[in-house]
């Protein structure tokens, strides 16, 4: 359930990018893995606590995402429909294999004083790092929601998502908006990676697993819907922990994927979304 909060954060980034750019980012989980390793390196070399390194990893994600969009995705935006998919698949392969070259295939983990600490609330035992991650996710999502609904920049983003040409006619610099949105999505994904670091092992191919989870989350919640991604993330967290408590740990990941295929069959617009297919 708490992991669901972080899933939601990964999913929101993907959903935001899809909503504005109509691009499914197949490198989303790989960006998350980069975030995890960045925080890992900062912890090992500078002794920086992951929750502190969040402050520099998230902006780094913003810049990395913006650079990828400007250099690789913007030039092909008028190409065939499959071009952005291939491009992000390629970027994901590069990222995960660079991580493999630099860090090797063995799983790494960090030991903080609170890694295994638990908190008891109403006789339910909760893992402390996951609880903190959940709280931070709620904060970030609330901030994002305020930006999207209350600021001019947020309005520009939502306008570009609804109708790009009309937004352009109203004086919105959609080129800038697209770059910014890809940056924000990447930043969210890398921040989620940092939040998961105290609770998980990190290995170079972890990104692929989370790309899939992010897809599941966004499809459950409805592609392009930020609020839907939150519910989708929580739902996936619940489904996985219920499956695990029935002793099906090995096939835990399969449950989410089967749920994903079922949703495609029954309600392609997502459980909570309006049809935008």
């Amino acid at each position, binding site marked *: 359930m708490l992991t669901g909060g972080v899933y939601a954060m990964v999913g929101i980034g993907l959903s935001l990018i899809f909503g504005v750019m109509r691009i499914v980012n*197949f490198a989303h989980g790989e960006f998350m893995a980069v975030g995890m390793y960045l925080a890992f390196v900062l912890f090992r070399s500078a002794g920086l606590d992951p929750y502190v390194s969040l402050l520099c990893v998230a902006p780094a994600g913003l810049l990395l995402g913006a650079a990828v969009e400007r250099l*690789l995705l913007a030039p092909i935006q008028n190409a*065939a429909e499959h071009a952005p998919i291939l*491009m992000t698949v390629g970027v994901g392969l590069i990222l995960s294999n660079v991580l493999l070259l630099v860090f090797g295939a063995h799983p790494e983990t960090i030991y903080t004083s609170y890694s295994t600490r638990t908190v008891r609330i109403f006789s339910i035992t909760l893992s402390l790092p996951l609880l903190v991650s959940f709280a931070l996710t709620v904060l970030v999502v609330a901030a994002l929601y305020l930006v999207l609904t209350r600021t001019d920049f947020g309005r520009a983003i939502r306008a570009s998502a609804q109708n790009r040409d009309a937004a352009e006619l109203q004086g919105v610099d959609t080129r800038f908006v697209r770059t910014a949105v890809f940056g924000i999505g990447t930043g969210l994904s890398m921040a989620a990676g940092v939040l998961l670091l105290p609770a998980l092992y990190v290995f170079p191919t972890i990104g692929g697993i989370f790309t899939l989870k992010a897809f599941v989350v966004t499809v459950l919640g409805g592609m392009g819907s930020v609020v839907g991604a939150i519910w989708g993330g929580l739902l996936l967290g619940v489904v996985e922990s219920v499956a695990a408590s029935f002793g099906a740990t090995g096939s835990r990941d399969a449950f989410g994927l089967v749920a994903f295929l079922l949703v*495609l069959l029954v309600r392609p617009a997502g459980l909570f979304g309006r049809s935008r297919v």
Partner: protein
Amino acid sequence: MYKTRRGGRGTLGAIAAVLAAGAAYPLILPRSLNFGISVVLFAALATAWDLIGGWAGQLSLGHAAFIGLGAYVSTLLWTKAGLGFAAGLPLAIAAGVLLALAWGFITFRLRGAYFSLSSIAVAEVLRILANNWSSLTGGPEGVSFNDLPPLFGLDLFDRRVEYYAALLLLAAALLIAFRIGGSRAGFYLEAVREDQDSSMALGVDPLRMKLIAFSLSAALTTAGGCLYAVYLSFFEPHGVFSLDLSVQLVLMSIVGGMGTVLGPLLGALVLLAFQEAFRNVFQQSSLLIYGVLIVLIVRYAPDGLSGRLQLLLRRIPWPLRSPSAR
């Protein structure tokens, strides 16, 4: 947008020449038969992928699902039920086509990236299934077998037999691609790919066309999976259902040129030669090179190598021009 190079006699001649060269290969270079098998087999698989990925424009990132399915169905029928390949191959192909129909029926009604998303999920579900259903599949250790009943009196572990079986599959894949390219179905598929709404207005049923292309692609890929299993004589869920394998097929096709008859073959040859030459340099991160190649090709040569070649050929004075380049 890429143009489709549909062939007339020129392409048919090129297919014949390729197959003849392929048939002569074991006589000329009997020592590097393993390399030959992988090129021919992957060329067949990439051509099969291109039927749905290139011609129909439905980017599958989960074709390993069919390779794994073929590998598991055909070998488990032998190790568990004692059925040889004469029965196992058709049964595996039937299973592959059924999977394609069910999966296509769910996802082809949706547009955009949904099919690509689902393709990763399907391969992953099958991988997890094969990994955990140990009593049937042997779990993560995979399946290994060192005896197979001869097929039509031929020993399946003879590398030459495997080579010619792969060549047969390649011939089937190329001829199907050629046949589709020149037929009404090919135009329908392209119409669906370029503009689904307009094609529907003209009376094309997109779901039906995509399902046809997908079943053909699945049948060929599943058959290729059976051969792949025999060639390896050992496989594990993580290998045959992996995203890497799926991406490899996609890459061969886009390197050579999507939606062309001979492009995927060219891509398979170039990539595998490249991989063979640099095997000792890159080792475990050969996928890094794949990633870089994908990015470069999508950015600078969206039509693939055959597209570049066509451009070059067009600059050559007309008597030298190959008839297929028009």
